[in-house]
């Protein structure tokens, strides 16, 4: 009943799709992280006026589906003549860049919320001690608050990386040949819906396991101070 001949002959297509998926996810994560950091720092500010814009950003991007956000950029930007006539149209007319922008903005929202939570969890004693040592505000953040923040954020961030990987499948909807897009092509050429999509699912599963493994390793290193003492 199953027809895996065509899958094996199309394996290169799946690997090309995998490569596109990895590109999109990695770039989105890096961009999103650097966007998330200032957003999270502003969101923990004591000034309410500074806090409102980052919190609204987080609320919007966490409260709406990634698919809709991507459509707003891919289908939506063409609505504005100013954008269509300007130079940046080169970016917005390409599905690839639209997906990347949507993914980066989306993961920035989730990452900022994770970081906001862990910044606020910084034990006050650490801040007090740093101040007693005469650290300036930037040194305090650089040496005390941020390292601890990243460490506490690691498990939640690992989940976010997996969510981003899984969410990135929507790129296949807007003509990009990522893993899901590759499965769509194989399905439409040979009409093997079950085999084609299951194969993509298997690839995603493997990448997920690799990410989980990497984060476990990273956690082992970063939480070294919490290991039980060995002789």
């Amino acid at each position, binding site marked *: *009943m199953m027809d895996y001949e065509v899958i094996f002959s199309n394996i290169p297509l799946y690997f090309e799709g995998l490569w596109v998926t990895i590109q999109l996810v990695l770039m989105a994560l890096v961009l999103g992280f650097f966007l998330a950091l200032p957003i999270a720092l502003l969101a923990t500010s004591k000034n309410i006026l500074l806090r409102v814009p980052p919190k609204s950003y987080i*609320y*919007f991007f966490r*409260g*709406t*589906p*990634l*698919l*809709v*956000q991507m*459509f*707003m950029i891919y*289908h*939506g*930007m*063409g*609505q*504005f003549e100013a954008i269509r006539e300007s130079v940046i149209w080169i970016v917005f007319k390409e599905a690839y860049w639209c997906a990347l922008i949507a993914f980066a903005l989306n993961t920035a929202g989730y990452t900022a919320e994770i970081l906001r939570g862990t910044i606020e969890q910084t034990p006050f004693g650490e801040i007090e001690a740093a101040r007693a040592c005469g650290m300036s505000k930037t040194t305090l953040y650089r040496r005390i608050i941020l390292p601890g923040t990243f460490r506490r954020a690691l498990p939640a961030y690992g989940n976010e990386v997996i969510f981003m*990987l*899984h*969410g*990135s*499948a*929507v790129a*296949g*909807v807007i003509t990009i040949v990522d893993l*899901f897009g590759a*499965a769509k092509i194989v*399905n439409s050429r040979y009409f093997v*819906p*079950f085999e084609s*999509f*299951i194969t*993509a*699912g298997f690839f*995603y*599963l493997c990448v*997920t*396991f690799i990410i989980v493994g990497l984060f476990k390793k990273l956690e082992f290193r970063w939480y070294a101070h919490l290991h039980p003492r060995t002789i």
Partner: protein
Amino acid sequence: MFNLHGYFPMILEGMLLTVEVALLSLVISVVLGMIGALAKLSNYRLARGAATVYTTIIRGIPDLVLMTVVYFGGQMLVNDIGYALEWEYIDISPFVAGTLTIGFIFGAYMTETFRGGILAVSKEEIEAGYAFGMKRSQVFLRLTLPLMVRHALPGFGNNWMVLAKTTALVSVIGLQDMVFKAGMAGGATRQPFTFYLVVAMLFLVITGVSDLGLRWVNRRFSIGVRSA
């Protein structure tokens, strides 16, 4: 920019479908989650193994991929079985495929949430139940179940919010939910951004209302819990 050209009622119709899909799949996911949690905590190794395979595989594959597998692949499977057994043609509608898949996916997340909730019920309360001479089923229905709700509620709320957003994917398999309708209206009026923004706002309405509801439920189930 906010001239909707009379398409708003159509979008709201789509929203109704979105809410329907979300609520139906929530019911499926709660049932599956309960079964999964009990299986994971059971004494039978086979049940534990099956539940672990279920949660691991489902949480490792993107929802969109699972949905297309069920929608396209499920149709082929039903056709093949139907052909062999000489049934009449059975059509798997996008509604059925979407609802079942989302329910199935979030059943895996609910399994973990409910398992945690059940484990968080304190042992003394269960022991007290047995000391009163309750049977296992009575202990479960009268003590464990009502008490685990309180612990599982925050996780349940999170799962529900994610589930509600996931329903947007049913538009990809052709179900005319509000994302699909926004696409149609956006194409007809050449204002796709406006309509997708409206849909985004409606999603915020859904999550906002759910948040209020969940807070109310949380208050009810936390009666008698002391907090500062």
